């Protein structure tokens, strides 16, 4: 395996802004002339010519304001989005930390959802079953694990989601500012788990718009601004730049 976990080479990601039928067929017919005129220019660049590399074992924070392109970058790394131009290369197994409750069905019990989620993240049923006890223990849900998830609080959803994601022992863990939900003890538990991951050599890419949450752990930071890399390097320098230039 090469030394590079994730690399972006001149990546540009364009979204087509108004899909032709966005306002339904009536809107399409009424604005036909507009659609023809603007067809070629109606795109929005979420990332513009972005290049960076993340080495294996790095803990890196992706920071920037809302709409800076952080989630797009994360989607490209996860492989759910595809670059319009340039190249995204990823080496190793990825685990995305799902948004609150994504992939969980509220009528199923926690235990049943562990199976579905674990397999969706790339494990076999056998592997998930072997890890189930460990996942349940880490989640701290106790007897709630056999209750339907609609009875869970949002913090409990989060605990289970995090527990499943970390159990697949990824090479690269993607964290999309979701950890703010759990209570303090769980946040601490998460941070400990991430330290453990870091010690083990897992690459962690952490998306945030606040500077505080990842302060202790991350080595480097990438600052995105209006879809471009504004600053990249040691976290102190990047944070300083963010405070003075952008905030």
């Amino acid at each position, binding site marked *: 395996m090469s030394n590079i976990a994730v690399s972006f080479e001149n990546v540009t990601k364009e*979204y087509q802004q108004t*899909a032709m*039928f966005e306002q*339904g*067929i009536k809107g399409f017919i009424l604005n036909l002339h507009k659609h023809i005129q603007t067809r070629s220019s109606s795109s929005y660049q979420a990332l513009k010519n972005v290049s960076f590399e993340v080495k294996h074992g790095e803990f890196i924070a992706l920071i920037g304001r809302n709409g800076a392109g952080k989630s797009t970058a994360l*989607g490209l790394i*996860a*492989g*759910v*989005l*595809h670059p319009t131009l340039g190249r995204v290369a990823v080496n190793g197994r990825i685990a*995305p930390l*799902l*948004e609150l*409750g*994504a*992939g969980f*069905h509220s*009528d*199923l019990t926690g235990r*049943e959802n562990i*199976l*579905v989620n674990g*397999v*969706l*993240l*790339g494990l*076999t*049923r056998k592997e998930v079953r072997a890890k189930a006890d460990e996942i349940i223990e880490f989640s701290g849900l106790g007897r709630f694990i056999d209750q*339907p998830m609609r009875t869970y609080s949002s913090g409990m959803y989060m605990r289970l989601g995090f527990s499943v994601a970390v159990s697949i022992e990824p090479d690269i863990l993607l964290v999309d500012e979701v950890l703010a939900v759990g209570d303090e003890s769980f946040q601490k538990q998460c941070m400990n788990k991430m330290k453990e991951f870091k010690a083990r050599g897992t690459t962690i890419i952490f998306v945030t718009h606040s500077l505080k949450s990842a302060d202790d752990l991350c080595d480097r930071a990438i600052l995105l601004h209006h879809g471009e890399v504004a600053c990249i390097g040691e976290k102190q320098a990047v944070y300083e730049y963010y405070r003075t230039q952008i905030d």
Partner: protein
Amino acid sequence: MSKYHYYLELLIVLISKELKIRYKSTVFGYLWSVASPLAFALTFYVVFSHAMRIDMESYLVFLLSGMFPWQYFNNSVNQSPGVFLGNANLIKKVTFPRIMLALAMIGNNAIHFLFALPVLFAFLWGNDVDFHWSNIPWILVLFLNQSLIVLGTVLFVGTSNLFFRDMENLTQVCMNLLFYATPVIYPVKSLPEQYAVVLNLNPMMQVTELWHELFLKNQVDFGLLSSSFLYNLAICVVGYCWYRKMEKRFAEVV
């Protein structure tokens, strides 16, 4: 672990998830998948044998033998607009072949269809229609043949609905029309000759005819089966190609 082994695992988990949800949220789970085609068939039976008077031998079993397969098609297609759209949070975060979502939904409906068949057999035998056990393998053949249209249509509608949300309403209207264009409640020979060309464009036409012949006459017309298969295969390929072409953009538009 090979890629295909993993896809099979994923499919099994997704189908059992759908089944569990179905059985958890309703008390009579299995009964509903039988009750709904039965209720439809009985309604038409009452209307057409008492009110409008269609003169046909064993009209009830005729209705049922077309209604169960129709329900498999109808339920799958009616759920298809939401098959990708309803799983937006997964599609945005996790990479897995999105077709699995469609296959799981269809698989769920297929299981209900196959498990409802004993009820159909009971009606057939109760009405002196002598359906042979030896024809059971043909049920599987016709089922797979019909599943081609189901898959093609579900992929086409599910994909299109991401880019063109009116698809959902359009599908409902079309399915209502298609029901009356399919010989479920009337025999195919009662159709006027001059419309045959147009009506034959409906892929469910030939499929329903095949089911009727198998259940009521213990026959399979190979000419009909092969032309139906080719047509269904074409529909499946079109749906699949459209899905493949747009798949990369799913996470952007859900």
